[in-house]
């Protein structure tokens, strides 16, 4: 499944300072759907090269990270259970505190 992933608020530093990643994420073996839960594991195993604790915690994103599916807060569509569709854009953004 083709997805656009975007990392911001400093999270891009965990991904080679590249903010936008066009990726193809296969569904889990024997299944057809790609959930956000599966995407998080795929990112950990395929994109994230170091310090997974900066991105993940307890099978979800770490506190302070907002997840947006097609510019919409993932809380509005099921968080880790949300089912992704072809060409969706998923944004991971770390909250900023500077001023």
């Amino acid at each position, binding site marked *: 499944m083709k997805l656009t992933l975007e990392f911001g608020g400093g999270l891009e530093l965990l991904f080679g300072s590249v903010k936008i990643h066009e990726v193809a994420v296969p569904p889990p073996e024997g299944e057809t759907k790609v959930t956000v839960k599966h995407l998080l594991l795929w990112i950990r195993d395929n994109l994230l090269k170091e310090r997974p604790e900066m991105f993940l915690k307890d099978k979800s994103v770490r506190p302070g990270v907002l997840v947006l599916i097609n510019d919409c*807060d993932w809380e509005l569509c099921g968080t880790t259970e949300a089912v992704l569709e072809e060409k969706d854009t998923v944004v991971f953004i770390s909250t900023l505190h500077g001023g």
Partner: protein
Amino acid sequence: VFSSGHSMGADFIRRYSRQLLVPSFGVSGQKKLSESAILIVGMGGLGSPISSYLAASGVGRLGLVDSDVVELSNLHRQIIHTEAFIGQPKVSSAASACLALNSSILVKEHGRGLNAANAVEIISQYDVVVDATDNIPSRYLISDACVATAKPLVSGAALGLEGQLSVYNHKSGPCYRCLFPVPPPPGTRQRCSDNGVLGVVPGIIGTLQALEAIKLASGFGETLSSRMLLLDAFSTRIHMVKLRGRSPNCFACGDAPQISAANLHEFDYERFTESTLSEEGPKAQEL
């Protein structure tokens, strides 16, 4: 030199003539603004344009909060201060700049900063609160105090080449804790003093915060409640994203809130966030 802005005198009309002509704002918007009081917490990169534009626009009473003094390393982004004020309290410097621009408004300096002991008492004196701080415990403290006193909160942040902006605790929208019930782990945080910030980035976020505060105070337009603006200055891209509404389970604004005006002073924000109420503090960690 100038008479009070609170009457519709000749100076009031001349000063605000261009705003009085704006159809959805007009005379009633300008009068509401001149009768409103706005608190700005933080006189740094965000607070500089916020205080300038709120003073210029004719907000009746402005409260300025900061306990720091002006430093040379502030001046690349904190445009309300000048070299002449280096070493002086930021609130004095900002108040003097606001009054030089508009002597018809009232400005109150809160030079001891905001903490759990004084937040409810200070915020109670204002209609709208603007978070222009630079640290995590202040963000939770200000949000909780706004929930406890039922004030809308305009919250902005900037770091590096990015900025974020939302309106909390307004209508059916979330508060800061609805979005971030648990603070980020200390090891994951970034600060301006470690990671830098291009000066104009908080300038952009701060002017947008001033716009939201003006809309809340004068009661027109649609604010960023339940929305967040994300700025990427490297590519000049701006995303507007839809956020969750108020969470019934929220510790602060939920159906069974744990924090109120009466007990907020007992909450230890520094321990909760494992960080100090000042950016330069030794407890703060870097990414």
